[in-house]
């Protein structure tokens, strides 16, 4: 479930890379060809986070939690975008780091139990 | 409502809206009730299961009725559509007959 929530944050930060918000969020990364790919990457990450949620043992509750975490993540992106775009950009790095950490921990945990 | 086009204030307009509102409100309930009744009698499962499924499905399809009532090309068309669907569903329910 942790992996799901984290992938989530990463996902939304990027699904937000859509047309009108790109300049604000991406700053000097703003290059036309990259921006066009962002929606696809964004949706890909969303799907990945859904898969991560469904793979947990208590998947029904994880699924409900996923649906709940969605507006939360989206809201955080929206607030960051509106009030502090630079902080929003920085948080993408943080979210990505947490996602990697989450995946690493669950793999380590699996090996401990195996 | 000031600022709205003048054709939105005549009696023809009000009648249009009124008929659609009645069709929408009454029609939604009637269609939902008939969907529940028709499915409860015709779904191929145990009685209580059919009732559960029928009621859930009735609520699921019901929002389509007010959307139709207001998007149909004219208020009489809206009413006709709802009446037609209702008659069809009532027929299915009646033909289904009460399960033993």
């Amino acid at each position, binding site marked *: 479930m942790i992996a799901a929530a984290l992938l989530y944050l990463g996902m939304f930060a990027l699904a*937000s890379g*859509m047309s*009108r*918000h790109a300049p604000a969020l991406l700053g000097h990364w703003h290059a036309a060809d990259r921006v066009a790919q962002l929606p696809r990457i964004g949706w890909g990450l969303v799907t990945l986070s859904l898969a991560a949620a469904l793979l947990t043992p208590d998947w*029904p*509750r994880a699924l*409900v*939690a996923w*649906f*709940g975490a*969605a*507006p*939360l993540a*989206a*809201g955080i992106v*929206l*607030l960051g975008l*509106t009030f502090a775009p630079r902080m929003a950009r920085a948080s993408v790095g943080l979210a990505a780091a947490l996602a990697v950490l989450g995946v690493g921990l669950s793999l380590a945990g699996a090996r401990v139990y195996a | 409502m*000031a*600022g709205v086009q003048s054709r*939105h204030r005549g009696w*023809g*307009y009000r009648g249009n*809206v009124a008929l*659609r509102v009645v069709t929408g409100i009454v029609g*939604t309930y009637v269609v*939902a*009730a008939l969907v*529940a*009744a*028709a*499915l*409860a*009698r015709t779904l191929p*499962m*145990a*009685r*209580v*299961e*059919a*009732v*559960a*499924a*029928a*009621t*859930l499905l*009735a*609520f699921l399809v*019901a*929002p389509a009725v*007010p*959307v139709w009532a*207001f*998007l149909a*090309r*004219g*208020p009489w068309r809206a009413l006709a559509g709802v009446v037609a669907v209702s008659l069809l569903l009532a027929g299915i*329910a009646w033909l*289904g007959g009460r*399960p033993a």
Partner: protein
Amino acid sequence: MSAIRDGARQVMAWLHGWTGLLLGWVLFVMCLAGTLSVFKPEIGCWMRPETVATADPADAIAAAGRWLAQNTRESTGWYLTAPDGRMNTVEAAYSDGGTFLYRALDPVTGAPAARETFGGEFFYRLHFELELPFPWGRLLASLAAAFMLVALVTGIIAHRRIFKDFFTFRTGKGQRSWLDGHNALGVLAMPFHLMITFTGLVTLASLSMPWGIAAAYGDDVLAMYHDLTPGIAERAATGTKVPLAPLAPMLREAQRRFGGAPVGRVYVINPGDSAAVVTAFRADSGQIGFTPAEISFDGTTGKVLAGWAENRPGVQTYNVVYGLHMGRFAPSLTRWLYFLGGAMLTLAIATGLVLWVVKRRERAPLSLGNRILERVNVGVLAGVPLGCVAFLLANRLLPLGTLDRLAVEVSIALWTAAAALATGVALPPKLAWPLLLGLVASGCALAPWFAPLGQGDKVILVGNLLLLGIAAGLAALVWRQTHPKAAPVRRRAARATA
């Protein structure tokens, strides 16, 4: 061509506005009360700070049963909810000589809690009964939920640029900002809003849409209930008085048959009669589906009469739909997400109601109808929260021994809300908004300080922090309302040149 507006999206937007407006105030009350009900057990704990004892669910129910047996007369039924990790008292709804009462019972002594209050149950009942007599409250709630569902669907159809606008929120631009806020609150949590509205409609279906039952069962509604929950044994009272057998062994047997899962609800029908039946339900917190299993015992001997663990797909689907709305399955984080979703829906309704007025005011001076509407908006949107805060303050300030304390707390809440509504209608909005919201903020800021603070209970602490947070947020809002900013234009120009 007799469409009401040009274009399907405009028609849907028009319908969205009206379905939202007509029952918007009712929906605001329902959503606010519903959001608070997510934490019904915790609110109950906050409102009964003296009652700290805990006990095993089976023992607690047994203690409650002993007290009820001694203190009720000619009861047709006791409807008990066992304590769990979230709430330490037994909630008892029972009939005593014809009237229906509600009490929270101490889990060790079985006697009513020292501080008599409805607790979270007040918000729960307000949510689906709107403090109106049966069946009108529930029917109104069903109607409002149906309107809400149509409002959601028409809102979705009308919002073509749903994803392009997904992250847009422009502040300080009058109607545009309110619209952005309303859209963001609605769209961001759309799956939650659709789920909670649809499942809510379904929970009241036996009252509002009984036609499936009527078509398949005719008049024999009892047969339907028997088919739905075969584990509930039904039989008529005989009139012969026989004392009830001890409850604890029955409940332990039930838990054993539930595979170790705890008991949630316990219904004792016709206690003290020779045909008494005790039905134990498996706790709803173990899985999403509501009412997953039940077992009935003969009240006088403890012999098992019937038992059932739900495994039929159709009924399970219904139970899951019901359970999704009740949210009792949710672990802590998900519960807070439900609260967040509910808060967003409540605010979406509030911003929608405000938007109706703001949008029309920017087009032309308000008509009389809309001016009245604006004032009622203030009264309701600020008054209902004020009523809720008054309920909490009354809980803290009313002396413990007050006669009929439960009803007095509720009366205070309702009268406060009514007074606030009247104030909102009487005063111009510029005055009424900050006044009423300021009162809510003050109330929230005051409430934490009246209880025995030193109890150290985590729930009370979190509740108090939440109240203080709300007070701070509202105070900031009131500040914004009374000190309007002229700065934005200047700031934008400054940024452009930077």
